[in-house]
């Protein structure tokens, strides 16, 4: 291996790095979406409302 892959001359970004950014941000979005649903579901007044 010769280190990081070089970006193609007709590209502005190095795409392997963009793919990494995309992967990390997509995972983060998944995590915060689950967190959002849980935070909404576990609001303290919801239990009282159910009763």
């Amino acid at each position: 291996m010769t280190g990081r892959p070089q970006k193609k001359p007709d590209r502005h970004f190095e795409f392997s790095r963009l793919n990494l950014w995309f992967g990390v941000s997509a995972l983060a979005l998944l995590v915060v979406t689950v967190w959002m649903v849980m935070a909404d579901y576990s609001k303290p007044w919801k239990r009282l409302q159910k009763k």
Partner: protein
Amino acid sequence: MEAIRNLINFFSYPQWSFTLSLVVFGVMLWSRKLWTKKGGLLMLVVVTALFCVSLLDPNFRQVVAKPDNVPIVMMVFIVGYFLWLSLYKGFRNDELTAAGEPTFEKSEAEDKIFTWPDLVFSEFICMVILTVVLVIWSIALQAPLEEPANPSVAPNPSKAPWYFLGLQEMLVYFDPWMAGVVLPGLIIVGLMAIPYIDTNPKGNGYFTFRERKTEIVLFLFGFLVLWCQLIVIGTFLRGPNWNFFGPFEFWDITKIEPLVNVDLSEIIWIKLLHVGLPSHWFVREIFGIVLLVAYLFVLPVALSKTRFFKKYYEKMGPARFYVGISLFLVMMLLPIKMYFRWLFNLKYFIHIQEFFFNV
């Protein structure tokens, strides 16, 4: 520590903070070194450090950490960043032009890339990251919902949305008709008129400071000092009963500030001439009317003869010059009125309550 807090509280009162911000505004635009990468970093570090130290104070923390106010704190940093970015690019281009080289934008425009995937993919990633930030924000800071509206209990202070707080702050100095209708109307008309008044093509498509000094200073004065600063004052420093509170001052609902404002007519007729106010509105307000007519109609003509404005008069022609200078003078009416209020407790230049015409 208490002494420093009191000192900052004292100097944040509008009469001082406005004057100080004028000085800082002038010094900042004057010093070229601030608008470099090093200078920008230094400003960011200093402002962030001051902000973080201030957060130790419970009164300061209570105001800036209010969910409603968090975006305004961010806005202050964002406005600062974009101000730095534009001036950094402007000064750098000025240096390039002085060295006989093409501007940064011109050399950049020769590089072309495809919309897909370079632009669209990176925008998509930004969108995902922004969504993550917004979701975390909405979970961490609860929406500032209040109890059901009650017509017999008005919130105190009763504040407009943040983007109107500059206008609400103007209400301290002007009649609602002026601060709520005439001035906002003229701001919109004035912004719309800029492309017709200022037809100088320099600075189109590239950043520069040297080629458009007067215009940039004028715009930044209106935007930063007269607009953003009033929003910051209205958001963070106006408490119950629209009283002014320093950043480290407790919002005391019982604070009383006696209003001893007087009209120009009262100052002249009663204080200076020692006679009662004339009963007819025109005679009573004649001094204010003469002053305002002179300010709006005689001063532009006089200014067009001065050395500084003469070159603009010749370059722009009478129609564009007079529209431009009239808008400028109306804008300057705000700081002028503010200083008259602070120095002489002036309420109105013209106060014709018979027709609700108050300036």
